[in-house]
């Protein structure tokens, strides 16, 4: 048997929920290790809409969710400012929408305390020129936009900074139980295949859509509904603020701005397999037809890719509902000692990205109770370091756009990146769409190596622009070999994986320019660079 590690708490899942739990544990001084089967945010936490809910969407149907959302919305704007853009949001009624909903919605928002302000339609149209000219009523709410890539990375980094540990590419393959007690987990290192045992007083299952699988490893039944939603990305940002339909929540009725693009969605279909990220053209067509009601020119806009993720919805009973929308999105915190007679295991699931902090707070309250630790939660006050780094990069010789990006992005890594920009020939731009320099790429490659373009993309936005990595993925991989950051095998495997992943997301939206871009990617990799379909094991 391999290495044995001991700790107090093991957190399974490097999504937003697990990240929040890890940070809360660390801030309360509880020793903890987070294990994630792939990279941070592999699951739903980077496969969502990125809307920082104001609660307005849920006000009519789920008051509790609305209350939690609004409260957390205010807290997160304060505590994770580097990952949130305070865009504000519109709720727009178009002629198709039911008139009677407005009153219900207004009074529900008032009851919860969500500030709602009516905006003259003409003014709204000035601010959002893509909006339907036939809009009848527009209200403004305090919605925001979350960068879920940076948020999950930053929250974990801050936890690590406070003494926690995080192991990515470590999949839990077994939950170790002794009689009626969970004593730890067995994990497998995805890069080396090596297995390790982590012993702990308590295990927190924060594995989102994979929750039932982890429960199964512990020998207990857990019923999850994985409700898959599709999202599509436009090649530029068409709206300043979030745009919602003012109606009972349905499909394809939200447009969320994200940096330079807009994300549009979504749908809801129940799936069995948490690894089901499939995308269907028909589903997209349906979305576009519906989205047209808010944004009439939607079919003329260019989509660069689509993706999907599953909402992990906990269901105590077995009544099934195909749309998944009528199952509560409420938070489920399960004490398996009370529920199943199994000690040492807690499951936290359901909820939303917006409520991750609160979910973590409740979880760690329970953990503390079980471990007899009294420390209080401080995550509603303690800030995660901001991403701004405007005092840096002023006298570095580099492209102005790349400097601009870094000064809003580098955060706690600013000093390190600045030094490397000055010292080595690392100031050139590798990814032109997102202005990523080699210095920045280097700063996110882990010390132990493990070169992975996907990990780099999630941390730097490399390859996220309109060309979807056609040029920069190869460049980054070649440079990594050149600079001793990757072996040529690692570079090759990672490139194949990256190109394959990007194409999957492009294929379903591949008309017009995107169809062209996809062919260019094929031509360059297959013809110009001579890549062949290899049987590369994707980590």
């Amino acid at each position: 048997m391999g290495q044995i590690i001991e700790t107090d708490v093991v957190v399974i899942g490097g999504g937003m929920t697990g990240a929040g739990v890890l940070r809360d544990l660390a801030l309360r001084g509880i020793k903890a290790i987070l294990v994630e089967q792939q990279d941070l945010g592999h699951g739903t936490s980077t496969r969502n809409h990125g809307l920082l809910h104001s609660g307005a969407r849920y006000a009519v149907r789920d008051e509790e969710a609305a209350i939690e959302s609004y409260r957390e919305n205010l807290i997160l704007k304060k505590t994770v400012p580097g990952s949130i853009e305070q865009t504000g949001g519109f709720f727009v009624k178009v002629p198709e929408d039911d008139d009677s909903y407005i009153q219900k919605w207004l009074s529900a928002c008032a009851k919860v305390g969500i500030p709602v302000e009516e905006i003259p339609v003409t003014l709204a149209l000035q601010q959002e020129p893509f909006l339907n000219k036939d809009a009848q009523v527009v209200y403004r709410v305090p919605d925001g936009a979350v960068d879920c890539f940076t948020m999950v990375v930053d929250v974990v980094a801050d936890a690590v900074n406070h003494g926690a540990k995080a192991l990515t590419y470590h999949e839990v393959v077994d939950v170790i139980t002794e009689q009626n007690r969970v004593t730890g987990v067995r994990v497998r290192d995805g890069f080396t295949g090596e297995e390790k045992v982590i012993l702990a007083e308590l295990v927190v299952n924060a594995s989102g859509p994979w929750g039932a699988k982890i429960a199964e490893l512990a020998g207990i039944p857990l019923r999850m509904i994985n409700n898959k939603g599709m999202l599509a990305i436009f090649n530029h940002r068409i709206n300043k603020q979030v745009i919602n339909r003012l109606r009972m929540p349905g499909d394809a009725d939200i447009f969320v701005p994200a940096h330079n693009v807009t994300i549009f969605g979504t749908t809801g279909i129940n799936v069995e397999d948490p690894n089901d990220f499939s995308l269907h053209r028909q589903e997209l067509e349906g979305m576009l037809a519906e989205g047209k009601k808010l944004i009439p020119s939607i079919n003329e806009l260019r989509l660069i890719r689509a993706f999907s993720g599953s909402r992990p919805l906990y269901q105590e009973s077995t009544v099934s509902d195909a749309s998944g929308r009528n199952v509560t999105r409420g938070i489920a915190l399960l004490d398996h000692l009370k529920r199943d007679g199994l000690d040492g295991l807690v499951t936290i699931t359901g909820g939303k990205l917006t409520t991750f902090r609160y979910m973590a707070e409740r979880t760690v309250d329970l953990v503390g109770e079980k471990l007899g630790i009294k420390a209080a939660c401080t995550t509603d006050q303690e800030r995660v370091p901001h991403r701004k780094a405007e005092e840096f990069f002023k006298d570095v010789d580099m492209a102005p756009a790349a400097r601009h990006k870094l000064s809003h992005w580098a955060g706690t890594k600013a000093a390190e990146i600045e030094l490397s920009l000055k010292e080595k020939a690392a100031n050139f731009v590798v990814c032109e769409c997102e202005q990523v320099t080699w210095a920045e790429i280097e700063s996110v490659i882990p010390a132990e190596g493990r070169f992975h373009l996907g990990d780099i993309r999630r941390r730097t936005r490399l390859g996220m622009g309109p060309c979807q990595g056609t040029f920069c993925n190869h460049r980054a991989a070649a440079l990594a070999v050149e600079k001793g950051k990757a072996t040529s095998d690692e570079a090759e495997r990672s490139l194949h994986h990256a190109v394959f992943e990007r194409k999957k997301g492009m294929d379903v939206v591949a008309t017009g320019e995107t169809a062209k871009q996809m062919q260019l990617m094929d031509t360059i990799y297959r013809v110009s660079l001579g890549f062949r379909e290899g049987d590369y094991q994707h980590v």
Partner: protein
Amino acid sequence: MYDVVVIGQGLSGMLSAIWAKEHGYRTALVATGSGKIMQSTGVLDLIPGADGGLKEWSELYQLAAIEQSQLTGAMEQFKILTKRLGYPYKGDIEHLVPIVMGSGHIKETALYPETISPIKEHGQVVIVGFDEVIDFQPAYIKGNLQKARPQLSIATIEISLGKQSQRTMTQLDAARLLDKKENLDYCIKQIKQQMTVREISQPDLFIFPASLGVENWKYTLEQFTKELGAIVTEAPGMPPNTTAIRLHERLKKEAVKLGVRFYVDTTVVGCKMDRAGIESLTIKTSNHTTDISGKQFILATGGILGGGLEVTSDGVKETALELDADENGNIIHCPENLYPVGASRGFSVTHNGITGGVYSVLSSHEMVDKLHQQAIIGGIRSA
């Protein structure tokens, strides 16, 4: 009134125009972009991005007997033409050769310019990179090449392009610098120095990015070969590849010299039809729209990548003349006097986005020939 109007200036369009003109037709060429040749590697493949010889190729492309019978002739014509242009191609469609790419991977190709030499199984090679050329990284190339050629002994050298260079440059930028003797000499000096200091033994082959000069490639190649005492090859990779640019520039110059009328930065926005077919094209430049009439029209606007075909949510469209196409990109009800060449012939002749150089050459050659037959029958020959 032209005898032949070619739409598109990729390899297929350019060759069609040149050959049509050589047949004595009054020829015009209309083009918006610069053609996908700018993104190509400048070598002529059979099946792009895949292995396979003549047999597999003709099956895959469903070549008709008539096309096959013209193959040798077309390749000969292409070689004669490129020789005349001062940028000769060599190679043989029956015996593909392995060449190394800017990634270190090896691909098989049919025809290639003189700046390229095939890669062997054994021996010593040195890969030379320029600090400034970000898309050609010697150590990375070495890794991939070593896997494909385990018996090669490979060394790498990094040099700088000198004072006139910028932080990051493309292969083409570097090539323009190497057109100048002082830069060339400076590079040779650095290579020799490193060879001595690092005691690198004399190789059989030096591998460079596709940067060995644009205008003066012959002199650059000769100097490197002579001074370094070994065969020198370019390894094309991430566009722009000078191997392709040289061909493009020379073809264009030749077409102009022959008297092909060029309508550049001009978009075909439609056409007027009569019962016999297309009467004239409606063309648009930045500030005005006019018609140009012709007897025969060659459509060389490319496939999806070239922009000649577009995937829309309700099917495939031909973009220049707005003709309907089926789901395989074949034009439905093609006017009688319109001749699609290269990737304009639909998806069955494109692989990994392009048709491959050999097919482009063949289809242009065959089309001009067919058009010639038609012209004789129809009695519209102008000469």
